[in-house]
């Protein structure tokens, strides 16, 4: 959203290395490359978040002993990076035609010092915010697939952000549908 852009490339299901293959399901790997510099600890923790989110929706049991690799390259970062990565990952999974149990979308909420909730904050709004919460919302029953918070907030505020994120998820899913329709209607 906005100026943040992430390029996602998905490879798989492909032959997995013997050391990495799992006997009953597909082995998912996520690689996140920042715009500048080498991937560091922050990228690793983001990769872990993305990987486990994708593992929850991808039906790995249909492709045992294979590897699915997702490579994300950050092209520009103007806020809400994690949810941009989540959306890119989901669209890549859709585009590759992998079997999924549900779609997911990433929504970032920023809690401003005066208590108002802002969705999809820009980098400057993120800095000013008291807390930033990122949620991955699943398309089935709008359940929470992934949650990550930065900064502290009260329990009620978190619930409010969650409700706002769930409402916003509808808009994003509509966008997915439109994009896919456009791609396949040519």
């Amino acid at each position, binding site marked *: 959203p906005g100026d943040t852009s992430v390029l996602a490339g998905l490879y798989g299901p492909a032959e997995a290395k013997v050391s990495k293959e799992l006997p009953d399901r597909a082995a998912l790997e996520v690689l996140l490359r920042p715009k500048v510099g080498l991937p560091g*600890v*922050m990228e*690793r*923790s983001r*990769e*872990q*978040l*993305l*990987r*486990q*989110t*994708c*593992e*929850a929706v991808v039906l790995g049991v249909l492709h045992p002993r294979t590897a699915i690799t997702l490579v994300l390259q950050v092209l520009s970062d103007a806020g809400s990076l994690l949810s941009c990565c989540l959306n890119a990952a989901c669209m890549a999974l859709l585009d590759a035609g992998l079997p999924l149990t*549900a779609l997911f979308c990433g929504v970032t909420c920023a809690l401003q010092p005066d208590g108002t909730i802002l969705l999809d904050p820009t980098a400057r709004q993120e800095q000013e915010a008291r*807390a930033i*919460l990122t949620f*991955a919302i*699943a398309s*089935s*029953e709008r*359940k*929470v*697939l*992934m*949650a*990550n*918070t*930065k*900064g*502290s*907030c*009260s*329990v009620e505020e*978190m*619930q409010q952000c*969650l*409700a706002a994120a*769930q409402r916003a998820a509808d808009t994003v899913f509509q966008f997915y549908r439109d994009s896919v329709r456009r791609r396949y209607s040519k």
Partner: protein
Amino acid sequence: RTVEPLEYYRRFLKENCRPDGRELGEFRTTTVNIGKCLYGIIVTGEVLLISGSITTADGSALVKLGNTTVICGVKAELAAPAADSANKGYIVPNVELPSLCAERFRSGPPGEEAQAASQFIADVIENSQMIVKEDLCIASGKLAWVLYCDIICLDYDGNLLDASVFALLAALKNVQLPLVTINEETGLSEVNLKQKNPLIIRKHPVATSFAVFDDTLLIVDPTAEEEDLATGTVTIVTDEEGRLCSVHKPGGSPLTGAKLQDCISRAITRHKEVKKLIDKVIKSITPK
């Protein structure tokens, strides 16, 4: 148990209990070890406290959560603050999962789990404002403290994040920083080892981890076996005001908002217990 672990577990979960005899909402026995001297053992219901640890570190603590053993050593060094934040010191947490703690960790560069855990701890410190970096500054622009917090897991039986946060908190409470003054004329720093002040810790965050089974059942404090079988994990970090410092749910089965709320309430209760425990230990090792 070895052939069909999931079925084995499901049978227990149907009866609302776990193979090791615990209830779904019961934590394992917690043991905390702080400081440099050896003290006696304090038993408080399910919590055991023993003192005694690393002598080369400025502050240290050992935490045992059931079989999961995590040790944290804090070393304080001096450095020049960064150019853009001249009045802030540094805290550098580093989580290590050496190959001796569990067979799935190989020796070599830190694996993804260790790095993700290090990032998590750094986020908790930052989010909870446990240590305000400005407090670590000695002379703005010239000298500041750097706290290297090394968290090493000695035995991995699940629930690494809870134990690490606990160990970090206990170790930081134990840190005594010597007074450092800058000699105006020479511009050099003088360290006064005789006079030591404890570290100013503003908040006390406590982490509570849950494992999700089959999208609905939540169990608290998972062992390594339970973690492998679980379909998802959630870690909630709260501070003493009941504010959320971190909600960490790395993927895994989807949860409804109500379930998440349930986790949060349990985390707040747990926080109170753990706080009582830490206070007790601290009181017992400061006779001065």
